[in-house]
């Protein structure tokens, strides 16, 4: 992979550029200089400083967090399940987390922090229910593991409609969740980022640490075990990290779809399959993708602001169709395994 380092450098450059742009560009443009001054010498009376510090910076941080976490989660899921369509969205993780948050709020009236921890539990619940369906149907017969994705889609629809049904029950609470449920980057959620960032950070650190054994598992469980990997232990840790970190992202800004599906496909041709490089590349590119989507959401229909989740769903749907065409429908479909 000769393009590996150039890709990483360009990806990081683009990331810095998008981050800076998302702080500077907006309904009220703030010059780069003022953006820097906000961080070096914050002036409470300066309106521009306030916009950057209280609105754009938290919003950008949320985008970075969600993008990095979801992209890495998708990358690990696609590798371990050997399925190009795997992602937190398509394996029931996001919808499980969303449903648990809505249940926590509507049924048990829990506060925001408790809702967040319910999201983590819900993410694991969603993932395990997806695996359970797969088990009931029988995965082993299908070399391309379509059953896994179909089960994930089924679980996703089921849990999101359960969440929606609950939303209908309480018109007053509903308005708080309507935007959140489509995936919404909003500076109002900064407090939640402050509460949960350490979850995603430690999950990513764990996944980076497991990069080598995880890559070995991609070439075969028995091969990995014979090379010295404790496959069950490493897989359990990785799946936990993926579900919990994706759950924390859902807790912050709702089930933001498809970053986890798209980004690994962008990254892999440049940096290869090895998680040692694909995980950092996914983290940076995922963050950039989320910042860009947020950019589009803010400007495409100005003066109206669309939810970032809507933009990502639109793009994601198209990419999903492309992946299906490339890996499943084409006459000489790209080999995945």
């Amino acid at each position, binding site marked *: *992979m000769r393009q590996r380092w150039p890709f990483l450098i360009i990806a990081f450059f683009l990331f810095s550029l998008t981050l800076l742009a998302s702080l500077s560009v907006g309904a009220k443009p703030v010059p780069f200089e003022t953006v820097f001054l906000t961080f070096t010498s914050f002036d409470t009376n300066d309106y521009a400083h306030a916009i950057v510090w209280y609105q754009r910076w938290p919003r950008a941080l949320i985008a970075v967090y969600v993008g990095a976490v979801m992209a890495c989660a998708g990358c690990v899921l696609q590798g371990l399940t050997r399925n190009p369509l795997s992602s937190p969205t398509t394996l029931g993780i996001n919808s499980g987390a969303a449903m648990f948050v809505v249940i926590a709020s509507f049924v048990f009236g829990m506060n925001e922090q408790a809702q967040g921890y319910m999201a983590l539990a819900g993410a694991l619940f969603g993932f395990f229910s997806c695996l359970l369906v797969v088990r009931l149907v029988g995965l082993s017969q299908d070399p391309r593991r379509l059953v896994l994705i179909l089960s994930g889609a089924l679980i996703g629809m089921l849990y999101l409609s359960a969440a929606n049904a609950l939303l209908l029950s309480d018109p007053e609470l509903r308005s708080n969740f309507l935007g959140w449920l489509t995936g919404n980057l909003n500076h109002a959620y900064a407090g939640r980022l402050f509460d949960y960032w350490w979850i995603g950070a430690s999950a990513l650190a764990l996944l980076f640490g497991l990069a080598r054994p995880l890559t070995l598992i991609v*070439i075969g469980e028995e091969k990995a*075990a014979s090379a010295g990997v404790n496959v069950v232990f490493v897989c359990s840790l990785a799946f936990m990290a993926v579900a919990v970190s994706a759950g924390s992202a859902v807790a912050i800004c709702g089930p933001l779809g498809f970053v986890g599906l798209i980004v690994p496909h962008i990254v892999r041709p440049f940096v290869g399959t090895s998680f040692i490089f694909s995980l950092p590349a996914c983290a940076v590119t995922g963050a950039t993708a989320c910042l860009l989507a947020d950019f589009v959401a803010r400007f495409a229909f100005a003066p109206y602001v669309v939810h970032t989740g809507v933009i990502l769903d639109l793009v994601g749907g198209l990419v999903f169709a492309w992946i299906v065409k490339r890996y499943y429908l084409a006459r000489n479909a790209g080999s995945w395994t």
Partner: protein
Amino acid sequence: MALEVVEVLAAYGRVTALRGLSARFAPGRLTAIVGPNGCGKSTLLKTIMGFVPVLKGEIWLNGRAIRSMERRALARQVAYLPQQHYSPDYMTLGELIALAGYARYSYFGGPTERDQGLFRDALAAVGLSDLAHRQVNALSGGQKQRAWIALVLAQDAELVLMDEPVNHLDMKYQYATLELVRDLTAKHGKTVVVVLHDLNLAAAFADDVIMLRDGRAVASGPVTDTINRSNVADVFDVDAEVYSRNGRMVCLPRYAPEQSGPA
């Protein structure tokens, strides 16, 4: 590297696969395991690797019970080529080979100078030195099989277990691949145990052969002493002519269409 399997009983769930199997694998020799479908050939390798639990009996590696060994410690002594493995898109041959040294790396470290040398030697041994930057999926079938053998070689273990390494290869590549396997003992001094489907391939390349049936070893020993008419009949239920030609055992089943119908 002495490997000894003593009266091992092993089962997948409720299906017993090995029924008190005993076998000795002589160090520095190439041993072929042959037998009819479902006789426990692959299971024997998987049991040695600890993928199938041993219910009774013991497997000894240099006087140590294999089940008491930790995965990484075992990987430093035993390399295994499973029947099924995957080559993901966008993985280069060089990256694949570098995975082999995992058991020697520290938890957060990577390959050392010595490891890099081993990887180069492994690729050179299978004649793929020039293709380290090529994607594994862009290799031909025969090259791919050589890549997997290089992976086993790069693990730098004394004992090498291979589960049907020449399946799905045409005749030319079957012989070329088994010549490489032969080199593992002849040139690299490794102890090799290989599961083969074809008795004639086993006869052509192996030093020793172990013939399995119904989870037990029916016959074992040097190829010339073990592959004979009565053993072939006992193990495969086939009446075959077995003769030596140019110092190589050949097994030719008698085929009588009017008696048995098309096989």
